[in-house]
């Protein structure tokens, strides 16, 4: 970190006062349901995810302001969807730079161009670039807005406060907090470590990260540069101005550009970061890409080493881990913070149910199982990218050069150059899923249901979903003979279940369709029309119902025939909901954890 300025581009760092809670005998007497260690993006997102479900938390952050440097600077569509549910999306979209693809060069020749999956009717771009200090600030803004004028803040964000020790106990965690105004103790029912790659909580519990560490090192340089080049990802392999190395370049907001370049074996890290060497490297690079005439200055530098490492479990009794405290992922493909947002999203609804007493503690084991699985899926993709960006051995070096030199003329081989940007991960082995017998296309249990447009101007499914479970009924006739039974099941379930009836575009209010069952007029059901393409993708042959978890992963789904008994359907729905709330004690995965 070499920037202690309070301004970077248009961003001004706000420093927050350290505040001690009212103490009795050196301890905070207020009961704390959830203590979140670390006010980085994952901790803040988790606090917001709990708060939108009414669960208060205390966030303990050692710094008195948000982070220095761009750090995690690419936010995926999936992460934006999560941020949307935290009521923070407008500032991210307003400020961030949307992009859809990029180009790779071998020496000076363009050999590959990629586009991330995207079409016009999608609500959100596949990726935006936004420096991490903006990400954190916008989440802090959302917290301040949410807290509003409440007498007792829903999220108690304690700046300048560091966890200096803790003791996990059967019924909670005893935490010691250090500030420059003095130390104090507090007691939390649950503690979530979101304290980053160097996690103090992880080290205190002496929990090892397992996986692969790579030797390849990358230097990260943020520069201020008034360039008008569009927002895209550019990668140069073996450029003549830096032979043997790989250079990446991304546009960020406020005319800040990020350059990542690979140190060659034998290059010394300290030497590479010396201002004169940074100056020489950047000037040479800018000259080579036709921007050497532009004035620029260094804003921030750092060094990065690739690795794919994880804790074996993200739950240790009353202590949970999320984000970089739980796992490290290679930078290539931007799965670091994006998988951290997924951690926070997965954990928030489960922890909220457990704290409220409506979900079993095995939900928290399912958090660990699902997200450890996701780590391995993310790591496999990230390793492919890393092996290409930073070849770990002679064989990878040789084949990379073979692939790069053929990519221009051979599209099949060019796909090896694809940076494999992050995509949503499916929880295929989730203990919360009800096995699927429908044979339907689209999202099977465990899979994230992709967003789709609804027949209201500018609106999508994600505009209609709340923080609860949702039962989505696709009805080609506009009617639903199990509507009443499902509504009754929702009422008796111990958790909130929203009911959403999707009908074809010609019958948004059911007119002209089968209205024999008056139950579709049931007040618990909300109706909305969707296109035939949406029906084709989810329910191509008659009515089908999808039970969505609060994180939009599918928990269960059913086809529905006119003759099916409403009572039997309600029983299936009851069972699926119970299972999705962690009641499936018969799951072998759950048993292994306990």
């Amino acid at each position, binding site marked *: 970190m070499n920037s202690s300025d309070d301004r970077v581009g248009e961003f001004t760092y706000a420093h927050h006062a350290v505040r001690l809670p009212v103490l009795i005998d050196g301890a905070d007497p207020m009961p704390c349901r959830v203590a979140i260690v670390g006010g980085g993006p994952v901790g803040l997102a988790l606090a917001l995810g709990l708060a939108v479900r009414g669960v208060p938390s205390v966030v303990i952050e050692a710094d008195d302001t948000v982070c220095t440097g761009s750090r995690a600077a690419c936010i995926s569509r999936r992460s934006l969807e999560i941020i949307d549910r935290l009521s923070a999306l407008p500032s991210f979209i307003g400020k961030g730079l949307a992009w859809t693809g990029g180009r790779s060069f071998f020496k000076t020749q363009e050999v590959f161009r990629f586009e991330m999956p995207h079409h016009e009717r999608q609500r959100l771009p596949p990726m935006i670039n936004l420096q991490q200090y903006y990400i954190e600030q916008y989440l802090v803004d959302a917290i301040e807005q949410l807290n509003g004028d409440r007498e007792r803040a829903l999220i108690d964000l304690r700046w300048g406060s560091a966890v200096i020790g803790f003791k996990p106990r059967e019924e909670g965690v005893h935490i010691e907090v250090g500030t420059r105004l003095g130390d104090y103790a507090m007691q939390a029912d649950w503690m979530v470590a979101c304290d980053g790659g160097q996690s103090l909580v992880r080290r205190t519990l002496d929990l090892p990260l397992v996986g692969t560490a790579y030797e390849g090192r990358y230097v990260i340089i943020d520069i201020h540069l008034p360039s008008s080049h569009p927002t895209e990802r550019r990668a140069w392999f073996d450029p003549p101005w830096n032979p043997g190395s790989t250079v990446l370049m991304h546009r960020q907001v406020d005319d800040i550009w990020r350059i990542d370049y690979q140190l060659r074996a034998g290059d010394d890290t300290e030497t590479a970061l010396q201002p004169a060497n940074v100056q020489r490297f950047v000037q040479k690079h800018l000259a080579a890409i036709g921007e050497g005439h532009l004035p620029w200055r260094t804003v921030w530098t750092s060094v990065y080493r690739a690795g794919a490492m994880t804790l074996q479990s993200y739950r240790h009794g009353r202590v949970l881990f999320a984000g970089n405290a739980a796992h490290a992922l290679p930078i290539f493909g931007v799965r670091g913070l994006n998988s951290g947002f997924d951690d926070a999203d997965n954990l928030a609804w489960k922890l909220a149910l457990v704290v409220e007493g409506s979900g079993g503690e095995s939900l928290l084991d399912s958090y660990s199982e699902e997200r450890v699985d996701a780590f391995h899926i993310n790591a496999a993709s990230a390793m492919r990218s890393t092996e290409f960006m930073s070849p770990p051995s002679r064989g990878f070096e*040789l084949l990379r050069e073979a692939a790069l030199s*053929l990519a221009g003329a051979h599209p099949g081989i060019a796909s090896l150059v694809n940076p494999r940007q992050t995509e949503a991960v499916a929880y295929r082995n989730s203990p919360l899923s009800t096995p699927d017998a429908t044979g339907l296309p689209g999202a099977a249990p465990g899979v994230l249901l992709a967003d789709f447009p609804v027949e209201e101007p500018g609106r999508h499914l994600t505009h209609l979903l709340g923080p609860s479970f949702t039962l989505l009924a696709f009805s080609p006739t506009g009617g639903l003979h199990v509507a009443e039974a499902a509504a009754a099941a929702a009422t008796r379930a111990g958790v909130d279940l929203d009911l959403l009836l999707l009908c074809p575009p010609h019958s948004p209010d059911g007119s002209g369709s089968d209205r024999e069952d008056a139950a579709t007029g049931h007040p618990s059901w909300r109706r909305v029309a969707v296109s035939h393409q949406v029906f084709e993708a989810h329910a191509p042959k008659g009515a089908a119902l999808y039970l969505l978890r609060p994180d939009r992963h599918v928990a269960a789904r059913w086809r529905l025939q006119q003759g099916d008994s409403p009572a039997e359907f309600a029983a299936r729905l009851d069972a699926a909901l119970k299972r999705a709330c962690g009641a499936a004690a018969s799951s072998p995965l759950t048993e292994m954890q306990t």
Partner: protein
Amino acid sequence: MNLPADSRDRLYAALAESISEAGEARESLFLARLALLLFESVGDETRCRQAVADALHELPMPSLSAPVRPA
């Protein structure tokens, strides 16, 4: 898919000529490119993997084709 004997003979010679033309410095890269192109053309993972495994199986230290080192 059996390669006719005369085709095999011609391909053997053509590859030999190409390796010589590539020269020792580019020999590995040339063969790596060839392997990637053949993967695409075979289009079958199992057969490609089998070929990779066969090529590594009992791979001898070169004696007949060992690079000539200056004494």
